[in-house]
């Protein structure tokens, strides 16, 4: 019987932009067991949120994660709105949808670049990130900032867009789509990318449900699960179907994300067409009371906020459940039995966002 070795994978590793450690128990080249070691990014936001008032917390929640910061603000604002019993005006709901989809686009392109890099395909990495910069320009055009855009507020959106912004966004979307059309076939067809991803990190439909997989990981295993079907923001008025693949491997997860980028462009176009005129911010007063749950579909999956308030100035308890936290058990399952050389691609395929995870 061959001896067993424990290899610490991370926390500082070229494929991870963030510190995450996987303790891999190896038998020669096979992974027998994997134990995730977290805690490198834990700050304690849940505790800090209990010391700040409701309006201040919007800015704090944006900084839970820099990639999907808008979604965090959106989910938090929705939960407070449902405590207060108010709703965002229709125009603000469409603006939220557009910004959420822009966020999804840039996050997926970020990930596509990283996976190309993990496959050793450096030129594709650079191309994907060049495309991402075009999307970042769109985001900057509508919000004025690249990362933490601070446009979401309790009761709507902070600032209205004029017609010039909308025309500019429509024009730039065409450019973005053209460059996406140029690069997508490489991910779909290229033998190098396929060799690394097809058959790597398989997780079946049944396992995925029991392991609590969410987002693209679940959808790549044939589970139709998309929180956008809840109809928050303006998703109930837009026409879309969750992207589902059935081959359950890393390739399927990549295809789900790629198809979602095109879906996001489509959703933004629909929203731009249907967007009504009017107010963007409902004023609110008083202190909320009770408990509420809000869920949104982040680029990485379902994000849940649980908020409880006892009528005080600050929330009594704010619980943030981020998608990567639910996908880590699936990662542990995927890694068992894989080869060491496949570990980077498999670990990336859940699109882990550690700053979200540990808060």
């Amino acid at each position, binding site marked *: 019987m061959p001896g067993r070795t424990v290899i610490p994978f991370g926390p500082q590793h070229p494929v991870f932009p963030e510190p995450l450690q996987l303790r891999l128990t190896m038998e020669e080249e096979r992974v027998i067991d994997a134990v995730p070691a977290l805690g490198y990014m834990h700050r304690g936001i849940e505790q800090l949120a209990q010391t700040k008032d409701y309006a201040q917390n919007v800015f704090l929640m944006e900084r839970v994660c820099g990639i999907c910061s808008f979604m965090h603000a959106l989910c938090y604002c929705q939960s407070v709105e449902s405590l207060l019993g108010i709703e965002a005006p229709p125009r603000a709901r469409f603006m939220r949808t557009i910004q959420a989809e822009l966020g999804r686009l840039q996050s997926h392109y970020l990930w596509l670049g990283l996976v190309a890099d993990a496959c050793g395909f450096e030129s594709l990495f650079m191309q994907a990130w060049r495309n991402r910069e075009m999307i970042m320009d769109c985001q900057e055009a509508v919000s004025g900032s690249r990362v933490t855009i601070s446009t979401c507020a309790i009761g709507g959106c902070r600032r209205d867009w004029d017609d010039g912004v909308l025309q500019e966004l429509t024009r730039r979307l065409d450019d973005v789509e053209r460059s996406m059309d140029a690069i997508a076939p490489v991910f779909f067809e290229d033998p190098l990318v396929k060799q690394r991803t097809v058959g790597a990190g398989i997780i079946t439909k049944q396992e995925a449900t*029991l392991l609590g997989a969410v987002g693209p990981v679940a959808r790549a295993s044939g589970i139709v699960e998309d929180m956008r079907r809840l109809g928050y923001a303006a998703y109930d008025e837009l026409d879309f179907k969750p992207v589902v693949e059935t081959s359950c491997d890393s390739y399927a997860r990549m295809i789900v994300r790629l198809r979602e980028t095109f879906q996001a462009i489509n959703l933004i176009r629909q929203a731009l067409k249907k967007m009504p005129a009017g107010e963007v911010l409902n004023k609110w007063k008083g202190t909320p009371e009770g408990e509420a749950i809000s869920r949104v579909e982040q680029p990485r999956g379902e994000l*849940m906020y649980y908020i409880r308030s006892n009528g005080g100035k600050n929330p009594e308890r704010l619980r943030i459940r981020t998608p990567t936290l639910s996908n880590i058990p699936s990662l542990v399952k995927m890694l068992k039995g894989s080869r060491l050389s496949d570990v980077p691609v498999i670990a990336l395929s859940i699109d882990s966002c550690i700053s979200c995870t*540990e808060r």
Partner: protein
Amino acid sequence: MIDNVVPVTRETLLAEAQRLADGGQRLISATAIDQGEYLEILYHFDKDLKLTHLKLEVKPGEEVPSISRVYFCAFIPENELKDLFGINISNIVIDYQGKFFLEDEAPRTPLLKSKPPEQGDPREVAR
């Protein structure tokens, strides 16, 4: 207010979790809320966009059985509860012994409102 809350006790928790697992429910997370006298633990489940919650009330120091034998993914929120609230959860599949998020330097059970008097803040004790 959230609806669909099923109250459970420490004895019935595992059976209820098994029932939900057999029904194809997905575990979302577990949340603890410090209510002063007791701790409230909410287990959130989802099926077809409908939420179900199990509500468990425990006194500080009471032993809570782990549901990670039923739902493997429960080891993450359970370790989190152990770290941040000091809830005594037994038989977790992967048990980090209270070191999931926190290093030795960080305060113990930072989310508990009242610190247990015998423990206190380790930094204060060290000084």
